[in-house]
């Protein structure tokens, strides 16, 4: 089957998933809520006018299937509701917060790949030996730490005791943000040649990105380790060894290169972990992104915002999975036939 047909088939599979996902968020936001008007209006004791306005805005008097139709139309046309806390449209707020989260997540993804793959390789090469155990412990600590613990310990050690990195924010308050191009401070300051801002925004990025990465690298380590172990038993590896190639060259040139193709498949899962991690990490480091917005909305029970973030994160996860599917189809042609 050609690559185009593969892409088209995957895109078709996306339709039922998207419908199902929106149906589920609809059920959460319109059906299981004990009193939808109170939740959407955002105050305990709304005036009758407020109730009428909210009921009309979200079509709460219509039968459920009509409500779902309106819900879908609203989602597609960008009417994601209004935050009762800030009185701003949810989609506009998401747009303001998104670049910061994108910057943080990409940085964390790079760090977790940089930690995860070498550790996976070492752990596979040392499989069952004594040195494998410290790696397993390190990896368990990444898996076992609640997100807030890691963030608070980082803040305490690096910002308050050692005083080498800032504890919160994206930029020192004395500096002006770089000219807005992408909204990501590191990229913007690099593009405009604003070196002071670049250094400062990178310094602000290090702690939250590393904390986020430590929560995630374990997935990458695990898949790298297991696919390395699997590849080591393959015939071509034995051939390479029996040709007399040095062990290091076999490990890196033959085993790792083939094992990495399955590491690509977990990038989607890693992104899912990173996004959910941002809720707590951004809150503690006061990183003004979607995660901080989500945490503040939850603490204030700002329901339209919570649902907006839920839909956004789910869309990102679905799309990342689609892209990794495509990437895997490029790397490994046999996938296209399944």
């Amino acid at each position, binding site marked *: 089957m050609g690559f185009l047909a593969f892409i088209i088939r995957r895109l078709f599979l996306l339709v*039922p*998933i998207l419908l*199902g*996902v929106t*149906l*589920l*968020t609809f059920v*959460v*936001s319109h059906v*299981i*809520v*004990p009193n939808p008007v109170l*939740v959407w209006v955002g105050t305990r004791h709304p005036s009758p006018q407020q109730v009428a306005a909210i009921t009309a805005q979200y079509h709460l008097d219509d039968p459920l299937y009509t409500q779902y139709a309106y819900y879908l139309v609203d989602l597609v046309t960008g009417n994601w509701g209004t935050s009762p806390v800030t009185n701003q449209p949810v989609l506009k707020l998401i747009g303001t917060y998104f670049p910061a989260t994108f910057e943080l997540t990409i940085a964390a993804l790079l760090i977790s790949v940089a930690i995860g793959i070498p550790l996976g390789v070492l752990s596979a090469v040392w499989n069952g030996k*004594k040195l494998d*155990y410290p790696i397993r*412990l390190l990896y*368990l*600590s990444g*898996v*076992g*730490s*609640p*997100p*807030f*613990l890691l963030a*608070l*310990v980082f*803040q*305490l050690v690096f910002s*308050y005791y050692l005083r080498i990195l800032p504890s919160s924010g994206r930029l020192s308050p004395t500096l002006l943000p770089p000219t807005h191009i992408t909204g990501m401070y590191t990229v913007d300051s690099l593009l405009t040649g604003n070196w002071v801002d670049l250094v400062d925004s990178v310094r602000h990025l290090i702690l939250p990105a590393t904390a986020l990465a430590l929560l995630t690298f374990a997935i990458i380590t695990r898949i790298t380790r297991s696919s390395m172990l699997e590849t080591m038993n393959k015939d071509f590896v034995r051939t390479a060894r029996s040709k007399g190639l040095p062990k290091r060259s076999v490990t890196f040139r033959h085993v790792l290169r083939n094992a990495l193709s399955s590491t690509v498949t977990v990038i989607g899962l890693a992104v*899912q972990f990173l*996004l*959910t991690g941002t*809720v*707590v990490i951004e809150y*503690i480091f006061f990183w003004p992104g979607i995660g901080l917005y*989500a*945490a503040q909305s*939850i*603490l204030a*029970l700002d*329901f339209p915002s*919570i*649902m907006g*973030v*839920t839909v956004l*994160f*789910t869309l990102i*996860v*679905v799309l990342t*999975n689609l892209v990794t599917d495509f990437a895997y189809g490029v790397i490994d042609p046999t996938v296209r036939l399944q």
Partner: protein
Amino acid sequence: MQEEEQEQKKNPKTEAKEARSYKPSVFRESGRILYSHVRRNPFYLLAVGFVIAYLVYSALAALFPQITGFDPNALNLNVALHPPSLAYPFGTDNLGRNLLNRVMAGAPIDAAIALIIVSFSFLFGALTGSIAGYYGGLVDEIIMRITDIFLAFPGIILALAIAAALGPGLLNAVLALSVVWWPIYTRLARGETLSVNSNQFILAARASGLPRSKIVTRHIIPNVIAPMIAYATTDVGNVIILFSVLGYLGLGAQPPLVDVGRLVYDGQNFIQSAPWYPIIPGIVIFVIVISFALVGDLIRDMLDPHWRI
């Protein structure tokens, strides 16, 4: 005569003893695996001990609340933000409440929540997954497509949204977590079912005319459950992390109950002057999670036949 009788009496006993000692026992093998792990890494022993102690304590605290004999909400402003000492091993909070007492009061809730969520997901997942895997076809399609939709969600976010929709509270947190937790178990059980299904004894059961529903309940499910147990043990820790995040954001146990995650939230404003306040409850969660992960590791190796050779 007497001697003969005695011999006759003795023989069957010793034979039985010998037979028992030669029979490969699951417990002995498990003991050997435990020993080999512990020799390499003593943390495994600590983890097993800690998990048992934690579960026993939680069960006792739930059944006989009076045995704990302390009030976790007792105030004493004279000792506000007291650092860890002999009298206050975990220190005190800004209202002088003993943090050890507060953690001890909150920790059993985490155990209860985690056990409820994991057991529900385990049972529901084992049932739906084995049905999907065994019957195949349309049933499989329907069950797995629904599961896929739930799996497409980032779990924490969906749980937070549901808990927020239902309102803060312990029961709502349980509902929210249950909704997001089962899909992985369904997928796991389906995969295991497909591999069990290809075995000869299923073919034999089918050939002997056993009805399909009985094959699922008598043969498939028992064989699917074993590998799922190891995963479920590790997973207790994952539930506790997610529940602590719910608690941290105010969607967990509400006062006068103590939520360990919420302790971290309340304490983080004092991180510079009283770092023990947010950090120690966080470390307690960490230790619980790691212990369950290590015990899960052990159980996996005990159930995995490769380790028995």
